[in-house]
């Protein structure tokens, strides 16, 4: 039986291996060092003990300063991993992320680049309410110069995080908190997974289902459900939003001629819109049905369990959307 591992361990391992391999890799964020518990959910546990508190720095609660420190150090050879504890707190560091990290390569005419990785966790499902669970990847994808990566399995988390750390551009790496302890296959040590290569998780012929991150679990469940009904779904995990692997998506959709996109972020103006627009533009005459989108309902993440459940893209909602394309 293959070894199993959860996200927390896989992400920890990727940082460990990257730090071991390259002394310029460093880490900063709130509570990340072992004296502060090795991260609020222990994702960074052991790293400061092994690599020292100069390379693994617990910071004040100051996201703008955390991001700026990462950017500044990255301009002169460091490869900082900056942890913004929860994605909603990127709102505090947006200036440094958007006006600086994403733009310094372009604005300097290529003289300087910003090889930082911004790790952040988020995701609804834990009852934290409106300010702790947002999926905001579309904002950053709309920001030229920022790469955006969302792993859906522990092994992908490991391999994609290695790529982010090695990448010469700012990479936003989005981790799903509610599924942190879900087990999956263990990664192969040292194996980076390239950014911009989508993963065709499951072959199928009737419709292409495109997703990423935590929603891949709901997507898988929808596929299984539909299989029992004789619908063959091809499931594509984008892995990264920027760069976007359009060729793989288009190849699949030109085969199935139907496409559904599912993500946790609210539907309007989300990543699904861009995908739907691109697929439709490129495969207009081949498509047999309009591309369907399934996303979070258009509201703040609610607290009460029943509301939170209904807010999220469930397997049922995905299944319904798929059936719509087949009707």
């Amino acid at each position: 039986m293959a070894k199993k591992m959860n996200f927390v361990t896989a992400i920890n391992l990727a940082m460990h291996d990257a730090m071991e391999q390259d002394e310029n890799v460093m880490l900063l964020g709130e509570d990340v060092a072992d004296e502060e518990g090795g991260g609020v959910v222990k994702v960074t546990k052991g790293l400061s003990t092994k690599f020292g508190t100069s390379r693994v720095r617990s910071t004040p609660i100051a996201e703008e300063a955390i991001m700026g420190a990462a950017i500044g150090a990255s301009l002169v050879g460091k490869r900082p991993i900056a942890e913004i504890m929860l994605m909603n707190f990127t709102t505090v560091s947006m200036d440094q992320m958007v006006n600086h990290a994403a733009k310094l390569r372009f604005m300097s005419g290529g003289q300087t680049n910003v090889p930082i990785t911004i790790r952040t966790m988020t995701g609804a499902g834990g009852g934290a309410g409106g300010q702790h669970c947002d999926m905001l990847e579309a904002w950053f994808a709309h920001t030229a110069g920022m790469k955006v990566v969302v792993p859906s399995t522990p092994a992908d988390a490991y391999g994609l995080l290695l790529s982010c750390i090695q990448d010469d551009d700012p990479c936003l790496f989005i981790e799903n908190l509610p599924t942190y302890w879900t087990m999956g296959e263990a990664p192969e040590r040292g194996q980076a997974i390239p950014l911009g290569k989508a993963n065709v998780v499951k072959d199928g012929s009737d419709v292409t289902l495109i997703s990423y991150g935590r929603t891949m679990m709901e997507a898988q469940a929808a596929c299984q459900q539909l299989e029992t009904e004789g619908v063959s779904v091809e499931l594509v995990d984008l892995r990264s939003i920027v760069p976007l692997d359009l060729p793989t998506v288009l190849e699949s959709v030109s085969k199935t001629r139907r496409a559904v996109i599912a993500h946790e972020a609210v539907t309007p103006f989300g990543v699904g819109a861009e995908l739907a627009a691109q697929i439709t533009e490129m495969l207009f005459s081949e498509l047999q049905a309009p591309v369907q989108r399934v996303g979070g309902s258009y509201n703040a993440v609610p607290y009460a369990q029943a509301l939170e459940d209904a807010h999220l893209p469930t397997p049922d909602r995905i299944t319904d959307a798929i059936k719509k394309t087949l009707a």
Partner: protein
Amino acid sequence: MTTLGQPDPATLLDIYERAARIRKNDEAFHSAMQSGKLGIRIYYSPRGQEIIPSAICNLLTDEDYLVTIYRGVHDQIAKGIPLNELWAEYAGRVTGTCKGKGGPMHVTHPETGNMVTTGIVGGSMPIANGLAMASQMDGNDRVTIASFGDGASNIGAFHESLNMASVWKLPVIFVCQNNLIAEHTRYEKGTSVERIADRASAYGMPGIHVNGNDPLEMWKAAKVAIDRARAGEGPTLIEAMTFRFMGHLIGDPDEHWNEGEKEAAMERDPIPALRRYLIDHGHATEGDLQGLEEKLDQEVEDAMAFAAESAKPDILELQKDVFAEEK
């Protein structure tokens, strides 16, 4: 600090009642979380910090405003939030203060001046300024309390808010509940100044460093600041020293203290100390206080029953309260 006389016995009894109410609710929240019965999904215990808002709120009316944070249930209860609706909110019921949509981190109850609860570190202060600005413009004598932690004194919003409040002489009191720790980061690891109260001088504002767990001192400090604000003389920064007895969140092993440090603090638990004081000084008899405590037990029991019997919100609630116009 200027001495403006002592709190009278009725005041001390009132502070005790508020503090004891907080403590009773805290105990009940803990056991409700353990039993899982009410479906409360998240809880930040204020245990150890009860005296601070109890003393402050003795000096306030429902007309005065409070903006508090995730760790704010002590502030809310001291400010007079009705327990039924509070518990129902925690339990995600439609009868909750926010219909179950906000949850513990976002409790609002304008009738009692509980204007905003935020889950964002630093988020309380900018909004508090706005409430105070409205009072100033309207020429009434309402004051606004902005509650926040020691860790929050290192984030940008603190700085911007205190500066603006001072330039505009807003009737706002910035109450920093210094429990010496921010999640898992000890005070000195994140904060560059020995006393947060000293930061007031960076804003030409009085700063008061006070033992927040001493009801007499805390009340006197609050009175100076509130009187000043009501008189139109501007804002005050109060650093109220306290201790967090129960870790950051339920389940936090809270291992960041030196040997004996936490135990010593808990031995100085301010609620039994105030209880003893009241009896020793003849302000109340053991029987009086037992009677009070039984009343409080009943209040809590009633609130829990109210929550348990209340309905959960319909999922149509997702579409409501997003915009003024309902979908």
